[in-house]
């Protein structure tokens, strides 16, 4: 099986290691990975800010960048969930892009969903001897609908101890441009998320979303907090 890899702009620009790890994981699971280096962004940042025209430009490009009718795997439930649930708002049913959207809709998968529910490949032989907690990103949990998949994958990692934190399902305060427009509210939310994570005694906070992780990281680094944000792909690719 060959899949197309969709690397969200966050990962492309800030965390390229994570994308390389996704390739490593998919290949270990026996899947060929194709990557189109022309891809950029699904348009979600513009859409969530109300800029539908700008979103449409990016969405059209996105559809063209993924012309194949085969699985598209991405280490982000936020971007995949957005495309599945909101592209139809942008294109009328008779729009030429609509059939492209339908193709994407049936092919798009968030990585943990794809590994667990499609490939049924859960044990990578990874080891990560640390205490960790898992942040249920809003988009993963409510927009896309994954809760057990990441936990199942983490349960197979040697040495890893997962501790659930209080309010794990509460937003970390990112919300895209929200965190720049309403800095005080955003920071208060991030602060409480970090407090809950610290209470577990975890060294790492894991998520399926690089956007949440970035938001946590900028707070952590500014305030010198002994906690490390890390993408689930980076954990699963550890120790082998």
């Amino acid at each position: 099986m060959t899949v197309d890899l969709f690397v969200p702009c966050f990962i492309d620009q800030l965390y390229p290691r994570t994308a390389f790890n996704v390739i490593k994981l998919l290949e270990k699971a026996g899947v060929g990975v194709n990557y189109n280096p022309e891809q950029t962004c699904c348009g979600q940042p513009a859409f969530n800010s109300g800029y539908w025209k700008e979103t449409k430009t990016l969405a059209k490009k996105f559809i063209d960048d993924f012309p194949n009718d085969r699985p598209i795997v991405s280490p982000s439930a936020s971007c995949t969930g957005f495309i599945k649930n909101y592209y139809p708002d942008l294109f009328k049913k008779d729009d030429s892009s609509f059939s492209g959207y339908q193709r994407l809709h049936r092919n798009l998968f968030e990585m943990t969903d794809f590994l667990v529910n499609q490939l049924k490949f859960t044990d990578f032989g990874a080891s990560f001897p640390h205490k960790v907690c898992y942040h249920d990103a809003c988009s993963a949990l409510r927009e896309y609908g994954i809760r057990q998949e990441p936990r199942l994958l983490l349960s197979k990692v040697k040495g890893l101890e997962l501790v659930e934190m209080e309010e794990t399902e509460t937003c970390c305060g990112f919300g895209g441009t929200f965190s720049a427009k309403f800095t005080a509210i955003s920071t208060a939310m991030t602060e409480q998320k970090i407090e809950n994570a610290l209470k577990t005694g975890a060294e790492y906070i894991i998520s399926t979303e690089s956007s949440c992780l970035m938001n946590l990281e900028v707070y952590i680094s500014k305030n010198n907090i002994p906690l490390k944000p890390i993408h689930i792909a980076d954990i699963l690719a550890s120790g082998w």
Partner: protein
Amino acid sequence: MSKTKNIFISDSEKIVADLKHRNTIKFNISKYDAAVEKGVQRYSNLELARERASFIKGQAINHLYEYLIEFEKNSTRNGAQVIWCRDSNEAIESVKSILVQNQASLLVKSKSMTTEEIDFNEHVEKIGVETLETDLGEYIVQLAGEKPYHILTPAMHKSRHDIADLFHEKFNTPPGSDPQFLTAYVRKKLRQKFRTADVGVTGANFLVADVGGIGLTENEGNGLMTVSFPKVHIVIAGIEKVIPSMKDLGLLWPLLATRGTGQQISVYNSLITGPRKENEADGPEKMFILLLDNGRTNLYQSDDRYEALKCIRCGACLNVCPIYKNIGGYTYNATYSGPIGSVITPFFKGEKEYNHLSFACTVCGKCTETCPVKIPLHNQLLLNRRDAVENGGDFVWNKGMKAFSYTFSERKRLDRFNGKMKNTALSLAKNTLGKRKSLPKVAAQSFSKEWKSKQ
């Protein structure tokens, strides 16, 4: 930036730093959360109940005109007088003339957010009529000279100590009195007022079209007393409160209670059909029902946001909203706060002045997941944002988003500069994320570029 937005930003900065506020709200909401979590267990199929409720309210909204006319016809037949009010001015003028005609000097009120919307108390007091809130939470905020903090739990921002202090200050009750004592104290005071009041004012949880009655739900019995002691009963209700049939209450009443407080059903649920009839022993002599628009038809005419008219004001979306929990009810500077408030306030009070509320949300989706009538609240906020941009948007963000879409619409534009240069550019926009966060660091090379170099 609008003035209201500036106020919102500065108020939110202050309140999020107030840890006493954070902890009081956290504590009070956690009590509700625990009760609601238990309450919903009683449903063998909560999802189905929500779908049905959404359908019933949807029917009512889709045929709003017909059901309202049916309601008017039936309640008029029951002896009530229906008054249509386009806006708060018309409502206030109608109320004033009723009060004058009936020579009212004391008016008792049961809890009603619709009356808050039209600043009822302020207007009525100006013409010399004493108004008294009789719901305990409302009584507390009225005593403190405040507005309701939450649509269901008006005094949610106060701890029991705050309330004991307030009563001590106003009535010289013993310092640190417990809630039982204070409740009994208020009860005694109110009894006297109920007996002497000339007019009782209530809202309506439902306007029941087929029987021409109002459905009133409450926990303290003060609503029933407001309706039964005074000679005149005035109802003030938004037009969206109409439901087709009495039969719908069997689903809606319990669902409203469960989502709001975790109760199986509220303690008192009354269906009031008109004033006292000749053969009846008690009840008011006159009943006036004011049907208020006040911006609701703006919602009705919008694309998709009309769904917000399904709201039964259970308050659940406020309780689960991380923004509400951090900034509290007052920061919204509007009658309706929380997710539902952010959706409807721009339609009620002006798009330009209130569209910032639609942006003050991380689109976490908790509200949508919770709403008993399945209003897609967070999606509605995204539609409000689109409207805000179409109506002119914000200068800086307009430029920023244009640049964003230009850069990201071609890979070579995106990779023209390396990570170091991008970081320098970012650092020029100092403090974009506030003083307590640093700026993110762009990698030396994008994944795309690095991947290409490895092929």
